[in-house]
């Protein structure tokens, strides 16, 4: 019979690290009351692990002279963290970009080469920068060296922003000037200017207790959503929203295991991870609806949701039931179309979609009386009341009047594949019009067409595709609008050369936006593909239709 004292004596063969210096450096976690602290800490660590386990430390990440990664700039609009397939803190995680279909995966960081790990990537609002965390790979090393960094979207020009303790979870302000983050494993919510100056604590007003995790700035810049604990239920975590100065902190979810809040681009909805799936919270009413179902006993754990720029789809991470893998999934905002984007032996998590510049204008304003699509086309007019927009994924640059409110939703690729369509639709917002916005074209858009609206779709044969029709007009479609503006196809026939000097690149894909002034609005969908451009006549028609759209004043 084995002697247990002797067998357990084998432990003496293990050589411990020197943790005294770590203890001296540390600021101990909050300790009031003890019971809550213990649990709060556990939650913080567990959530960090759930997210890929990437809390961490570091000295300066000095690769400021790295070469741009060309693959990172072409349509690879999703950021994610990948690490070795181990359960527990991943020790070699890096930040990657990939395309929306899960292809073209490209590594942006080389943290491992620096003896570090990279995690928590966050797109800047204009999509030109990425904030992230660099840290040493071991928990015991996570002291003052864990910091927030910012790099270009192609991985170049890495700059350190914070020098605190356990600084994690960067979240950009909508104007791109500030970054919210958590400090000391969620003990504090902090804000820093992007240049590293003006580090300050957000002093939360209300019954809300650490660990604070996953700050998310509201699109209007006024509030911050985050995950925290309730004093009365210290073993729980819920989603909270507070003013950016910490005032009026309010609990938003009733559950006791809710977290990972993510604002929809228009600020109306917060996606969050509940104990059995991703849920969508209507901020105004407080009502919830289920997006995914993932019961821990049968499925695993869904977490870290992130919206597509146009709010029609969400990315999220799913840990399998055995806890041996985490992969990124994609689902439509109505819960349909769930499918996995990543696979393989590596963990993939913390996925986020590159924002569209379109969503950065938020204030509703009356629609202009000028021709809407005319404004869309005059992208070279950047001065005055025009605002430049650029959608990197689609290689499409447009402008719109700066007093317009813009939101948008992506076209559903299934409308007419592959992008051999052009569609324009105007429609009055119906009550609760956001539901329309969130819907996938074409069905809802078609349903909402008014008698004065225009809908034109073209397929390969130049005929309408999909079978939808304009309400009140039978099966027919309206004639081609008469008021087409001037536009020519460039020499060679593969690009459009408007007379105003615009240059539209070939290979443009579907692009779709949505305008509103609070109680009315209109869709614009432009679908242009290589085959469209290959046919000068149809390319001409496509652009002509764009130029023809008019928006009436209220």
């Amino acid at each position, binding site marked *: 019979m*084995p002697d*247990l004292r002797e067998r357990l004596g084998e432990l003496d063969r293990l050589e411990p690290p020197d*943790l*005294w210096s770590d*203890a001296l450096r540390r*600021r101990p976690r909050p300790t009031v009351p003890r019971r809550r602290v213990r649990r709060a800490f*556990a939650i913080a660590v*567990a959530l960090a692990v759930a997210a890929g386990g990437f809390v961490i430390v570091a000295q300066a990440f000095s690769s400021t002279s790295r070469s741009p990664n060309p693959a990172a700039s072409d349509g690879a609009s999703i950021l994610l963290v990948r690490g070795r397939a181990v359960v527990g803190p991943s020790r070699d995680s890096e930040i990657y970009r990939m395309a929306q279909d899960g292809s073209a995966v490209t590594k942006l960081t080389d943290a491992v080469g620096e003896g570090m790990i990279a995690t928590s990537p966050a797109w800047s609002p204009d999509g030109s920068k990425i904030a992230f965390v660099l840290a040493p790979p071991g928990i015991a090393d996570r002291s003052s060296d864990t910091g927030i960094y910012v790099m270009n979207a192609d991985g170049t020009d890495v700059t350190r922003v914070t020098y605190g303790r356990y600084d994690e979870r960067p979240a950009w302000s909508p104007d791109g000037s500030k970054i919210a983050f958590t400090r000391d494993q969620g003990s504090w919510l902090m804000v820093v200017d992007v240049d590293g100056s003006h580090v300050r604590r957000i002093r939360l007003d209300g019954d809300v207790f650490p660990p604070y995790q996953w700050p998310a700035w509201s699109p209007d810049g006024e509030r911050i959503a985050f995950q925290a604990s309730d004093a009365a239920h210290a073993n729980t975590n819920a989603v909270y929203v507070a003013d950016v100065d910490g005032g009026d902190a309010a609990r938003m979810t009733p559950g006791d*295991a809710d977290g990972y809040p993510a604002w929809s681009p228009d600020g109306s909805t917060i996606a969050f991870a509940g104990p059995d799936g991703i849920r969508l919270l209507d901020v105004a009413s407080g009502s919830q609806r289920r997006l995914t179902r993932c019961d821990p006993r049968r499925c695993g754990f869904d977490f870290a949701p992130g919206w597509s720029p146009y709010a029609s789809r969400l990315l999220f991470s799913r840990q399998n039931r055995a*806890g041996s893998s985490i992969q990124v999934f994609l689902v439509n905002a109505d819960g349909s179309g769930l499918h996995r984007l990543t696979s393989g032996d590596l963990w993939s998590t913390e996925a986020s979609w590159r924002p569209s510049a379109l969503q950065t204008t938020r204030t509703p304003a009356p629609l202009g009386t000028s021709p809407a699509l005319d404004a869309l086309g005059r992208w070279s007019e950047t001065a005055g009341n025009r605002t430049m927009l650029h959608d990197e994924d689609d290689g499409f640059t447009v402008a719109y009047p700066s007093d317009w409110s813009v939101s948008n939703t992506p076209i559903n690729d299934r409308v007419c594949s592959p992008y051999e369509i052009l569609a324009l639709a105007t429609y009055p917002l119906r009550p609760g019009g956001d539901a329309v916005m969130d819907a996938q074209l074409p069905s809802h858009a078609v349903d909402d067409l008014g008698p004065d609206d225009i809908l034109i779709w073209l397929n390969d044969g130049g005929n309408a595709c999909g079978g939808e029709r304009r309400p009140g007009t039978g099966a027919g479609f309206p004639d081609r609008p008469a008021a087409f503006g001037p536009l020519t196809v460039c020499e060679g026939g593969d690009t459009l050369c408007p007379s105003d000097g615009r240059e539209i690149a070939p290979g443009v894909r579907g692009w779709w936006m949505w305008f509103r002034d609070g109680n009315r609005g209109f869709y614009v969908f432009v679908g242009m593909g290589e085959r469209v451009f290959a046919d000068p006549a149809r390319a001409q028609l496509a652009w002509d239709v764009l130029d023809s759209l008019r928006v009436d004043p209220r």
Partner: protein
Amino acid sequence: MTDEIELELVYREEGSRLWRAVLAYSGDRELADDAVAETFAQALARGEGIRDVRLWIWRTAFRIASGELKDRRRRFAGNVSDALYELSDDRTELANALSHLSPNQRAALILHYYADRPTKQIAAILGMSAATVRVHLSHGRKRLRSILEEQSDA
């Protein structure tokens, strides 16, 4: 009565054994690193507020580790506890055997047979009654021996 010098002395005398015990309990090296470092950081912050610092550090370290393990189990809702259990880079028979015990059984056995703590102190460290500790010791002992015997027979 705890200043930094005294606390460092406690660390030098107890730190290694405490770390190994927490590691054996949690099965996770990083968790053990963090629990022990955090324990001493908290002791430093409390200064003279601790009466029996040696008992206090054991209790605090095990509480931190226990809380973390519990929450991982809750969050992951799978076999995370077992999956995380990697006592050393090269898994030993002992690590494998310990991983088959309940956390309380594991803690009680480690504190008793490795840290040489009497039942009463184990009860104080784990926040349970001495009678409960004895039950965990009894059941854990029986199970661990059985597993180790199976391993040696195999």
